[in-house]
């Protein structure tokens, strides 16, 4: 097996035994990117020099006995996470040449662990989208079927893992942006409990939802990466206080006594029958592994999607006010008036979808509409949180599809933002509740000669990551 095809656990064992060096692994991964990324388009920036420098540090850690589970492991970072002196574009013309002067907390954590960053991955501009087609800079293709989208917004990260262009990748999930591309590309993606991973240095989209998480080849790898990146960080006021972050603790333990609910609303109208069948099949396998599976009901999901879009557009309109052509990135040319400078810069610098969400956000926050839209959506959020809380009094975890369909063809939905938004129905409830949820591959759907990956989603109450990984790993080991 090639190094690039191996998971973190296998690579780490080889590194520890000194059968390969971090430098050799980095060179191998960079060669894999050169070979395949011309077709896939997962990376916006390949940071070759940076990777070699970090590999040297990793080799020193391996030599002096300070290495950990991620030391020397090559990875990719979503391009909305700050990396000092490596451009961070958010896949936007606005930040196309922007070099951050500091590292995000997650970048610091991975450097501390000795992981080796290969580069920055493509995404929907400012993480707004579900197919990565809203990138202003590049098209990313699904490694399983090149005519299909990789999902989004962390499409580049999911595609890089699936195409063996890195051992793991970091993404961010505001309304499903880790889980949905993980499902479309056939990799494991985790959105942790809100506040688990510091948002310091993550370019803000919708701050009350944004959460960073890992995309990996296996469930065990995923837990290891989350252990490395989660920490309390005083620079993010929503960062949780220290708590038990031994996410791998329950992996390998049997599922007897675990109660898993199947909310029927996730299997209703609009769900591709083969997707529903694959998720039901995953439920059977979990049952065979010892879990007790029961159908249940979560009617509150029916208003999750409008509530989510009201709130995320409102937060985006506020967060993106900072891009004014003065402090960051792009500035429009030939303007003598400050107000004209703002407007021209923002109109030329932002893509269509970003401008649409800013306009929508300002609408729902306007006097006269605030109560009817924004406050109403916040109240709907409260009701959904209560509904989840009630269900988790009966169940340890919930099982659902990640997306109503497998990946779709490039261009199929890109001109219909409403249609694209409807695809987020299964993922946004988790973000409204601040809950952890994982996407785990559970088969493929054959379509037009392509085998399109599908994932199932395990959702838990806050801080239940260890239990989610336990169930996900039990499923994975039985496949």
């Amino acid at each position, binding site marked *: 097996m090639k190094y690039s095809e191996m998971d973190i656990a296998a690579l780490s064992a080889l590194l520890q035994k000194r059968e390969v060096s971090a430098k050799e692994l980095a060179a191998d991964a960079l060669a894999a990117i050169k070979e395949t990324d011309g077709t896939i388009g997962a990376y916006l920036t390949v940071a070759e020099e940076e990777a070699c420098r970090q590999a040297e540090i990793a080799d020193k850690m391996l030599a002096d006995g300070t290495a950990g589970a991620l030391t020397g492991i090559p990875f990719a970072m979503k391009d909305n996470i700050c990396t000092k002196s490596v451009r961070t574009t958010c896949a936007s013309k606005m930040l196309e040449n922007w070099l951050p002067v500091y590292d995000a907390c997650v970048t610091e954590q991975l450097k501390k662990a000795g992981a080796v960053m290969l580069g920055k991955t493509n995404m929907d501009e400012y993480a707004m989208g579900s197919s990565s087609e809203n990138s202003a800079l590049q098209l990313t293709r699904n490694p399983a079927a090149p005519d299909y989208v990789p999902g989004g917004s962390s499409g580049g990260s999911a595609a890089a893992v699936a195409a063996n262009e890195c051992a793991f990748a970091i993404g961010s999930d505001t309304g499903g942006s880790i889980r949905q591309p993980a499902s479309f590309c056939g990799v494991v993606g985790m959105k942790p409990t809100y506040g688990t991973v510091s948002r310091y240095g993550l370019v803000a989209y919708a701050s009350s939802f944004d959460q960073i998480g890992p995309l990996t080849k296996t469930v065990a790898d995923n837990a290891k990466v989350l252990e490395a990146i989660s920490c309390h960080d005083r620079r993010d006021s929503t960062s949780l206080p220290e708590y038990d972050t031994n996410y791998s603790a329950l992996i390998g333990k049997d599922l007897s006594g675990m109660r898993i609910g199947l909310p029927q609303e996730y299997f209703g109208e609009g769900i591709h029958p083969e997707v529903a069948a694959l998720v039901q099949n995953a439920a059977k396998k979990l049952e065979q592994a010892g879990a007790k599976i029961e159908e249940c009901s979560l009617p509150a999901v029916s208003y999750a999607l409008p509530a989510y879009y009201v709130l995320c557009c409102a937060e985006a*309109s506020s967060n993106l006010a900072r891009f004014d052509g003065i402090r960051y990135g792009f500035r429009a040319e030939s303007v003598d008036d400050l107000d004209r400078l*703002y407007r021209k810069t923002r109109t030329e610098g932002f893509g269509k979808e970003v401008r649409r969400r800013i306009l929508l956000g300002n609408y729902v926050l306007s006097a006269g509409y605030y109560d009817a839209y924004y406050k109403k959506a916040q109240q709907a959020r*409260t009701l959904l949180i209560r509904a989840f809380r009630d269900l988790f009094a009966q169940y340890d975890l919930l099982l659902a599809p990640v997306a109503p369909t497998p990946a779709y063809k490039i261009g199929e939905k890109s001109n219909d933002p409403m249609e694209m938004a409807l695809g987020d129905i299964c993922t946004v409830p988790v973000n409204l509740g601040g809950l952890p949820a994982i996407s785990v591959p559970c088969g493929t759907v054959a379509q037009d000669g392509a085998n399109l990956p599908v994932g199932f989603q395990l959702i838990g109450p806050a801080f239940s990551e260890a239990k989610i990984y336990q169930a996900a790993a039990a499923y994975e080991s039985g496949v």
Partner: protein
Amino acid sequence: MQLDAKTLDTLAWLSRLDIPEDETEALSGSIAEMLTFFQQLSALDTEGVEPTAHIAPLENVLREDEPFSPRLDRDLLLSGTQSEDGLITLPKVIG
């Protein structure tokens, strides 16, 4: 449903954006479509329900005002789009 031109103009001003002429029709249609979708929420009984602004189980606390970050101010200033002598330049504001 279309958004009327005056509302779109106001939104554009609030957002500090221009609406390119060739995008006006599609954009106002798409915004109106989303607003119609948002109206599904009006059917929900939210009488007496507290709005959730944030999910974090944290309380606002005050800390001592002690510097703890590395001092980035000069680097940040220089990372502005256009700067001169360590200061950001911008169009003349006062006539």
